[in-house]
């Protein structure tokens, strides 16, 4: 039997963001499933974006450069 689209046992992933639009942009950019957007109470990263499943935040070229320094 094929696995249902939303596997309820599957993990979530959480990414902080400056605003809710960043969450939608991440979903579009990485082809993810955005299942919740929450306020954090922090002053800079004001929202949490919660994605379904085995998503992994790809390292940007910028991050890779930083590690190589």
């Amino acid at each position, binding site marked *: 039997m094929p696995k249902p689209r939303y596997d309820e046992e599957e993990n979530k992933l959480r990414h902080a*963001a400056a605003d809710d639009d960043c969450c939608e942009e991440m979903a579009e950019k990485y082809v993810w499933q955005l299942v919740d957007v929450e306020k954090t109470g922090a002053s800079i990263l004001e929202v949490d974006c919660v994605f379904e499943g085995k998503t992994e935040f790809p390292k940007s070229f910028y991050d890779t450069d930083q590690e190589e320094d």
Partner: protein
Amino acid sequence: MRKWIVFRAEKRQPGWKDRMYTHTGSLTKTLFEHYDCSDEALPEPGYRPPEFIRVDQFVDLNYPEAKTHYRQSDWEVVRVEAYTPEIPIGMGFDMIVICYCKHSPINAPLKPMPERQVSIDSFGGDKAAYEQWLEPQKLPAEV
């Protein structure tokens, strides 16, 4: 494919007086919404959308309002409708999906939220803002 998935209470489900938009006070049947840009299949009857919960004793003081746990909700999908635009050009969504739900309590176990990740995408690609955020993170912790 950009899908707006709305989870909506069926008629005459309990708790209707408390389901309201906080910014207007208007009652609503909307329970949850997802923005799904994946190519995965749609939700099916039997699926329970997750709910997110804040447990005071686990709150991170740097993110005092953030949720700390999640679990399967007490709402179960019973029927799914999908709508696509007639002319799918320049539209905000490629599909609107309505998942009708019934209240079916299960008291699912809580799971801790995963660690919070941060990258340049957290700042909408704004490299300067990301660098500014990184600076204090590099400082050694005071003893």
